[in-house]
């Protein structure tokens, strides 16, 4: 059969993200891939230069609807580092709670999408039903389900009181059996295994050399997780990264499965150890200097860089999101696979084009 090039995306039933991959195939087998992005660029870095620096928290939160809290927190941490602001311990723990709730709902959403990609509609709905409980927890504690607007420079604007903490523990108790019911399917089901084991293999050395992050790197045996830097309260919670070694779509799924439980435990642990005290400090003045920070989103390491010149506006804000650096890894996974496996392999890096293009 002659070589043929055709587009995968930008709209595809399995991927609600506007990315196009130009696939060159021979005999149903992919031999070459070229990405085309840029369908939804919003110029957020430019907008951040035009906004007063304090307002950028709300702008950065809108980079992504799934990990909006983590974007806001990353921006706050960057400015706090420039301005040498010490965030109160209670705020650091609250940031961990909301970050891990974001990871929990993101991974449940992704597991649902994976189930949907195989046509497992019931499993998809069960994952998303469990996710609703997490969104309810976010809504109860922050007032919002998607864009929380809770992080501020100097801490957080909301608190979790004893009554809410008790209610959260009850909701987590309800959530646990729902996760336990769906996870075995992702581990043991024949169809899921046959579509993911040995598909889209990314060896460890390549994952590192190509700059892969998050479950894409950890599924290939790379033990890097930005939470190891101990930001917020992670340094006090005994955090260990979840690592699998096979480097295939199944390994990346198992990393997310294990991280779902880990996020659940981290929320409980942070609730148990939540220190008393203030939730924010007053921040005066304007950022003067530069800082670069890394935090861990559900999809991997997120990088923020800010340069302030002592005025109310930033000279430069740079955001580098996990999918942007996972695309080169994806281009390595696809050649050699069958056309039918492309959607699942693409899904296995959990692409977020809204983040990527900013």
């Amino acid at each position, binding site marked *: 059969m002659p070589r043929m090039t055709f587009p995968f995306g930008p709209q595809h039933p399995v991927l609600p993200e506007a990315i196009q991959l130009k696939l060159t195939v021979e005999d149903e087998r992919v031999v070459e891939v070229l990405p085309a992005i840029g369908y939804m660029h919003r110029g957020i870095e430019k907008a951040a230069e035009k906004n007063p620096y304090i307002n950028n928290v709300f702008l950065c939160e809108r980079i992504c609807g799934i990990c909006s809290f983590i974007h806001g927190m990353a921006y706050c941490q960057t400015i706090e580092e420039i301005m040498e602001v010490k965030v109160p311990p209670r705020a650091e723990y609250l940031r961990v709670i909301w970050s891990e709730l974001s990871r929990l709902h993101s991974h449940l959403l992704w597991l649902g999408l994976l189930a949907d990609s195989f046509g497992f509609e019931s499993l998809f709905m069960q994952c998303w039903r469990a996710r609703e409980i997490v969104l309810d927890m976010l809504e109860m504690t922050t007032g919002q389900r998607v864009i929380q607007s809770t992080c501020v420079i100097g801490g957080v604007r909301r608190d979790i009181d004893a009554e809410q903490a008790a209610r959260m523990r009850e909701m987590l108790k309800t959530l646990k059996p729902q996760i336990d019911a769906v996870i075995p399917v992702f581990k043991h089901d024949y169809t899921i295994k046959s579509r993911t084991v040995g598909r889209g293999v990314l060896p460890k050395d390549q994952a590192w050399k190509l700059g892969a992050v998050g479950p894409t790197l950890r599924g290939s045996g790379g033990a890097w997780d930005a939470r190891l830097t101990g930001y917020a309260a992670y340094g006090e919670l005994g955090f260990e990264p979840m690592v699998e070694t096979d480097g295939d779509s199944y390994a990346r799924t198992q990393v997310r499965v294990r991280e779902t439980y880990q996020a659940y435990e981290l929320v409980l642990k942070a609730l148990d150890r939540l220190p008393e005290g203030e939730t924010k400090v007053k921040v005066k003045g304007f950022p003067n200097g530069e800082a*670069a920070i890394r935090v861990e989103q559900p999809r991997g390491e997120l990088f923020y860089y800010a340069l302030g010149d002592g005025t109310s506006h930033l000279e430069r804000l*740079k955001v580098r999101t996990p999918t942007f650096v996972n695309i080169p890894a994806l281009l390595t996974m696809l050649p050699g696979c069958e056309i039918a496996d492309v959607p699942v392999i693409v899904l296995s890096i959990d692409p977020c084009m809204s983040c990527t293009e900013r």
Partner: protein
Amino acid sequence: METISVGKGELGLAVQRLLDENSRLVTAVCLDQEEHFVVKYFFHKEPDLVCLAVKVGKDEELPSISGLHLNAALIENEMKEFFGINITGIALDFGGRLLLSEESPRAPLLKKRPETGDGGID
């Protein structure tokens, strides 16, 4: 975070040295400083970041590092599109069409945009 200033000519060697030490490119940030650009390459070198800073004149060429680290290709394409910086030899060059379209403004992240009149909306 350690910052090392290097010249354009030494960039390749400095990057290779970091890669030999098992570092990985996190990203690069381009700064428009009126007379010139400063490009900062951030490398993850366990457990911290190391920054290589390169000063480039606005009419000068900057050699791509994508031959050493393929992950740099998308990052360099983005810098080239958004700042108009002349990065040469990118392994996968999108020719200004990675993120921007024909109707997009040219070099939108420059502090003062050139009046080229070559299309684009403001």
